[in-house]
């Protein structure tokens, strides 16, 4: 197992390195550079000043040598300075990351709490009216544009009913109570939860239907076990294996969802940070933010493989490497 983990970690680091090259290259292809922005902000900057500034920031060097400089500093833990936030990159990222984790974890937990029972319920009554209804709702969920879902929630709960704030942060609104703070989380978490329920319900249903067809389930029924013991005691643990794997694999999808939700609700998380950094030519921040998102997704893939082998004794880590 440890050999497997080491090998996979090395693979992930290689992917991360390749991504850093690709993203750095793409950022080099984006319009303008920080000095262009300074010039547009301050008309008194002359061409000589601009050239001097470019030399100070190293922007006069070719892209590859800028990348080598960046990598050299990054390895020592220096990820540079964010222009947008006027802070070292790490200090801008840490609060955004913790905000996003709050959003991701609470909505994933809620989505699973709804989706898994719904999927199991549907799978035990295939092609019944209830199954049909759950399927239809799941299809509707995965077909819903996530940003429109956010807008609709704002329309209903903020505009029409006026119960909840339409977005932003408690600090910006100047409220301090814990209930008031929580209110700012309700709509973003709901949007991300609803967006995730459909997919998870479909996985759970498909996996449970497949499991209930196995021979050992027939044996369990033949022993005279009650249907609930068969489903929850014998089938569930086996049916969960692919579901857990998919949940871990979907961390990237979840992150994309968080990005959309954050931009709709002006929620100060990683997605909004990456978006603002790309739009605001804040190269250092954009690069590290994107690499963090990539690392999170790679971590999800690694977890999926570990979970797969840990949950299913028939699978060994050697199989996964083959």
């Amino acid at each position, binding site marked *: 197992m440890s050999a497997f983990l080491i090998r996979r970690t090395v693979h992930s680091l290689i992917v991360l390195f390749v991504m850093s090259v690709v993203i750095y290259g793409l950022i080099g292809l984006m319009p303008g550079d920080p000095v262009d922005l300074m010039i547009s902000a301050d008309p008194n900057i002359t061409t000589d000043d601009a050239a001097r500034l470019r030399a100070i920031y190293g922007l006069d060097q070719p892209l590859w040598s800028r990348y080598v400089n960046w990598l050299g500093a990054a390895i020592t833990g220096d990820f540079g300075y964010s222009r947008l936030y006027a802070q070292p990159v790490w200090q801008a990222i840490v609060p955004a990351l913790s905000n996003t984790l709050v959003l991701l974890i609470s909505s994933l937990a809620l989505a699973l709490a709804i989706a898994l029972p719904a999927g199991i319920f549907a799978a035990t009554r295939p092609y019944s009216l209830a199954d049909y209804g759950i399927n239809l709702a799941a299809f509707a969920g*995965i077909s819903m544009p996530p940003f429109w879902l956010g807008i*609709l929630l704002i329309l209903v709960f903020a505009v029409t009913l006026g119960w909840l704030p339409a977005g932003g942060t408690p600090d910006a609104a100047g409220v301090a109570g814990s209930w008031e703070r929580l209110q700012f989380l309700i709509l973003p978490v709901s949007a991300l939860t609803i967006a995730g329920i459909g997919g998870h319900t479909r996985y759970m249903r498909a996996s449970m239907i497949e499991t209930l067809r196995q021979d050992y389930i027939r044996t369990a029924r033949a022993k005279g076990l009650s249907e609930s013991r068969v489903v929850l005691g014998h089938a569930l643990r086996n049916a969960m294996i692919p579901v857990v794997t998919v949940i871990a694999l979907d961390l990237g999808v979840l992150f994309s969802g968080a990005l959309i939700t954050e931009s709709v609700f002006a929620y100060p998380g990683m997605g909004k940070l990456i978006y603002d950094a790309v739009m605001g030519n804040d190269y250092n921040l954009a690069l590290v933010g994107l690499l963090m998102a990539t690392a999170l997704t790679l971590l999800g893939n690694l977890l999926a493989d570990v979970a797969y082998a840990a949950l299913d004794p028939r699978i060994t880590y050697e199989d996964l490497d083959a």
Partner: protein
Amino acid sequence: MSAPATLAMETPARAVLGRFMRHRLALFSAGVLVLLATLSLLAPVFETLLGVDGEAVDLFSRYGPATAEHPLGTDELGRDVLIRLLYGGQVSLFVGLTATFAAAVIGTAIGLMAGYAGGRIDAFVMRVTDGVIALPVLPLLIVLAAVDLNKLGLPETLLSSESISLYRIVAIVALVGWTTVARLVRASTLSVKTRPFVLAARAQGAGAGRIMLRHILPNLASPIIVATTLSVGNVILLESVLSFLGLGIQPPLPSWGNLLTGAQETIWEAPGLAFYPGLLIFVTVIAFNFVGDGLQDALDPRARDRRAADRH
């Protein structure tokens, strides 16, 4: 020797059509899609009928209510909402279909070659595919959409074209969207290439290209069609998200996504502007998903319950 007439009627194609027709929801969805596409294409006709110009700005009638002249009211620049929606439909459906098609062609080519070549080439290509699948798609697309095409050295005539944002989004969606089809095609190629008819073709001296295109590819039609149909919905969603964020289709060219861009700020004055474009995206995507689901049942009835949970 003549088979009974009823049996002779049941050709494979007929059986597929029959199973699809029994799938009422899929059939209904296909009808909805045809209707939406037709209405979108008829946008100029509606302009004439209503006597309005979809691009005419009228700042005196911003956020106008629904009237006989403007059935869905007017937007923040006084333009007719219905006509904007129909032209937006043209753009969104065009991007959805062409980007999916392009991704399917790339995916088929890569999967076919990897599966047929096997060995180290296959292992390498699949590692790259896994790598692309592992990437966080949306943040990456945001960077791709922000790339300055001038720095790529593309011809000036192309860059100054009004629909450059259209080509750009088709290209970047195709660039990240080929992986599902590639994996599927590669897996099917691995199994089909060991069948006797492929060996027979090789024994007759057929080249690799001929074997791949004439003997293997036709056998992969079903999974490719199903996967492609199921991904149209996702592509339309992706286009709408990027356009909503201001990185996809650029106004004044309307798409269902960019019609929602400003809707959030004007949600208090004009809630309708935030509602209709999203509804059309939703209906279109769910219809494509139902059609794909129906096609899956029709083309591969045994897979109905057996299919592994597909990535959404």
